[in-house]
């Protein structure tokens, strides 16, 4: 009937009108005062590696949210980068990443310790002196025993399952299945950790490790009073040594931090902590789209994950100059790359691998991750934010952004496959970007006759059962594996060791090194581990990087970047190489 169509048309146009109103977005409030310094006027990348709206003013509540849940607020049981970032507000490990912008923030400085660790015995023994006058939130003074206990409890991977295993791997003579709860006197690890006096702690390692200061910045070295340790329940209220303490904590909903009156800033001269907000609230399980919208509306201050806004929000932000002025394209210490599994022919041949490196379309790889906003084209492995990293371009990726077909064909001739070959390429099924990478490579490599068959696998078991399980990968011809790797911390060891050292490959699966097996590389890694001079050590890691590239063991894709949104409510906001997102120990709120 006629009128029915009219009614429907009215309804449809009403709905369209409404959605246009909605998509128009909220009016972003004008940024900064007129006539102030550049650092206060909102501009694109204003907080990338530099301080936007510097401030010393204290006050306000920092409202943070995350789409999922925290891994753990227990400093001895956490692995998320965002958790380590925020934990500096309530715990003080021996060393800490400096809260400063850019490269400065990639440096590890003394926190609870008076100075950097002193290596002896060929970097197998490390000694730290602990500052006097640092107190827990209940007023008791911190001693070296509290640090020893903190590390000891983190060794119990049966109770505290989430955290990193560096101490388990490197400390001397740690018994299997060690649990501090069964060994309250810590006698079983007496050889591993010594506390000769209340202000000295000594670590004994089972092999040389020159970069131990990086271990010392792990939250697991933050002191824990043994009497107040409640095992898996400790996460509900970790005893604070930092400028904030827990007011409330629900592991399924979120937590609130308030000022710790026992924190004495005079005992904390080097870390750069500012502790500007009076209160910090963290809400879990907030819808991703909700977070992005609230940031823009000014209802929320920080998206804790720090990996960037959702793809659709990204498009909206980049298209709108006002919104773009509030965005920061922050560099991550993360490489998106494709590994060659040398157990699958013909990728056991160096020239065949080189052919792939030459034929690949690097811009296409970048496009798969969202174009330049998604990251910079990687020419080697270590991203520029890794301490001491050097960029080099042995294969001419920068000139031949879309690949070099001639050189590729030459390499194919050299490896005896002039017509090309067929290969499977594995990727994680629920990551559309990785799928796009597989497809881009499929296209670009087909130009020289290399036929790729993309093979999706479930993300949850990717490394455990499929691509990361050597037998499976070999049996299924997974010669190329799309992957992504972010360092635990930005130095050569933190970045490279897990992905290029062949000795970390486990037959049982769960590997992070998905196919690099170069004996020279293994030797260089050992050398780096024992070189105590920082500059020299960093150079060794560069050599590792060069060797891997020389062997064409890996096709580097892009060094990842995230697009973060910076609401006007923030002050003193900056990103740095240590955190690869906004630094949560320095961030504050704009005071009216």
């Amino acid at each position, binding site marked *: 009937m006629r*009128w*029915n169509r009219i*009614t*429907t048309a009215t*309804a449809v146009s009403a*709905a369209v009108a*409404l959605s246009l*109103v*909605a*998509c128009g977005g*909220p009016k972003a409030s004008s940024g900064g005062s007129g006539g102030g310094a550049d650092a206060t006027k909102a501009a694109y990348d204003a907080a990338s590696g530099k301080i936007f709206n510097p401030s010393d003013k204290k006050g306000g509540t920092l*409202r943070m*949210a995350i789409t*999922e*849940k925290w*891994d*753990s607020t227990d400093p001895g049981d956490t*692995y998320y980068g965002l958790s380590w970032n925020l934990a500096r507000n309530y715990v003080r490990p021996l060393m800490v990443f400096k809260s400063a912008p850019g490269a400065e923030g990639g440096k590890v400085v003394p926190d609870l310790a008076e100075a950097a660790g002193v290596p002896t015995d060929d970097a197998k023994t490390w000694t730290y002196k602990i500052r006097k006058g640092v107190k827990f939130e209940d007023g008791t003074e911190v001693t070296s025993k509290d640090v020893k206990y903190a590390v000891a*409890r983190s060794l*119990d*991977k*049966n*109770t*505290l*399952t989430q*955290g*990193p*295993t*560096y101490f388990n791997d490197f400390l001397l003579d740690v018994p*299997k*299945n060690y649990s501090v*709860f069964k060994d309250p006197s810590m006698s079983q690890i007496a050889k591993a950790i010594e506390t000769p006096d209340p202000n000295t702690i000594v670590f004994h390692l089972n092999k040389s490790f020159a970069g131990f200061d990086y271990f010392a910045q792990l939250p697991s070295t933050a002191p824990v009073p043994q009497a107040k*340790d*409640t*095992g*898996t*329940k*400790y*996460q*509900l209220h970790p005893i604070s040594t930092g400028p904030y303490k827990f007011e409330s904590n629900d*592991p*399924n*909903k979120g937590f609130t931090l308030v000022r710790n009156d026992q924190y004495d800033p005079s005992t904390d001269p080097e870390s750069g902590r500012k502790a500007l907000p009076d209160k910090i609230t963290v*809400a*879990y*399980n907030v*819808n991703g*789209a*909700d*977070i992005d*919208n*609230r940031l*823009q*509306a000014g*209802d929320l201050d920080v998206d804790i994950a720090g990996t960037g806004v959702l793809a659709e929000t990204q498009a909206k932000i980049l298209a709108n100059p006002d919104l773009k002025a509030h965005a920061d394209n922050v560099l991550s210490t993360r490489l998106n790359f494709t590994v060659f599994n040398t157990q699958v022919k013909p990728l056991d041949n160096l020239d065949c691998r080189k052919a792939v490196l030459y034929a690949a379309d690097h811009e296409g790889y970048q496009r798969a991750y969202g174009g330049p906003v998604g990251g910079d084209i990687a020419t080697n492995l270590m991203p520029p934010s890794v301490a001491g990293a050097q960029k080099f371009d042995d294969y001419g990726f920068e000139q031949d952004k879309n690949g070099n077909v001639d050189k590729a064909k030459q390499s194919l001739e050299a490896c005896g496959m002039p017509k090309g070959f067929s290969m499977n390429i594995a990727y994680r099924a629920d990551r559309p970007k990785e799928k796009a990478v597989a497809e881009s490579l499929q296209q670009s490599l087909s130009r020289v006759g290399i036929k790729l068959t993309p093979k999706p696998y479930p993300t*949850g078991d990717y490394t*455990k*059962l499929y691509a990361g399980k050597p037998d499976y990968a070999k049996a299924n011809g997974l010669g190329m594996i799309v992957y992504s790797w972010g360092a635990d911390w930005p130095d050569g060891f933190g970045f490279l060791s897990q992905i290029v050292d062949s000795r970390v490959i*486990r037959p049982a699966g*769960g590997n992070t090194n998905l196919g690099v097996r170069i004996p020279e590389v293994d030797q260089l890694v050992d050398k780096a581990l024992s070189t105590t001079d920082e500059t020299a050590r960093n150079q060794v890691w560069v050599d590792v990087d060069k060797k891997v590239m020389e062997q064409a063991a890996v096709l580097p894709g892009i060094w990842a970047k995230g697009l973060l949104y910076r609401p006007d409510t923030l002050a003193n906001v900056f990103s740095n190489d240590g955190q690869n997102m906004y630094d949560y120990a320095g961030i504050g709120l704009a005071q009216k």
Partner: protein
Amino acid sequence: MFAYLVRRVIGAVILLFIVTAVTFSIFFLVPKLGGATADDLASRYVGKSAGVEQIHNTAVKLGFTDPLYKQYGRFVKGLVVGADYDYGAGIERCPAPCFGYSFLTQQPVWPDLVSRIPVTASLAGGAAFIWLITGVGTGVISALRRGSVLDRSLMSVALAGVSLPIFFTGLLSLSIFSYGLGWTQQGGVNPLDETNPFWWAYDLLLPWVTLAFLYAAAYARLTRAGMLETLNEDYVRTARAKGLTERTVVIKHGLRSALTPILTIFGLDLGLLMGGAILTETTFSLPGIGQYAIIALRANDLPKVLGVTLVAAFFIVLANLVVDLLYAVVDPRVRIS
């Protein structure tokens, strides 16, 4: 009557056990069919760099290496008498009913689950109140003004309400009222944290209206159809013949009959909703049972999944029982003498 109730309750309990058994089986048997071992399962619940040893220990600790019936027996025992949990620094008693400890967070499932029930109840209850009044009211008006422009517009709006998915109407209302006009703020706010009932309602207003819109639309159409049918009944004509006012005829005689099927559907809808208004809770980031279900499923966290499944099943079974009893109360023809 009493015997009937007892039979129903026993049946319900058996059903709930079956539900848990099935959930258990799906969780363990399906990966097994795919060739996964106990260690493979356990690897989900450990950190990034966990070694083989650690994974295996976790598998043992979580009981994956035991046969299925033993694990299920442990679960049932926990439900009935409670269990002890070693949290490292000591042993904690988890009183009955013990839903176990989350594989991932190592925290007891029951307290968190229970704390979420009031949130979902607030959401479902408030929305139910709104949709019942607006939906039934609209349906009655439409039926009385059948064929008029008002009737047709209302039914068109109702069609839209029934057809538009919640995440669309939810996001639309958020973008207009929350991000755009700034009238409400959600973002993880727990309405049960508010001490003042006004703010409790304020926090829930947008989710209420969004959820209610969907159901109100359905109920408007239902009521309208029911009313049209009832108003054609002979007893309505008799009521008019007695000289009753039109209002009495419509409400006391017409609506009273038309409401019966609606009330039964309402009971079932409410029961289902108490199992977790998943889409609404996710869109508005409300910490209720629905959100809990998503968290549990994403993390493959069996104790949480079991807990949420049981709670949802419980409410649905309860709703069915209440509805059956209610029907006998409302319609005298159905009573068992």
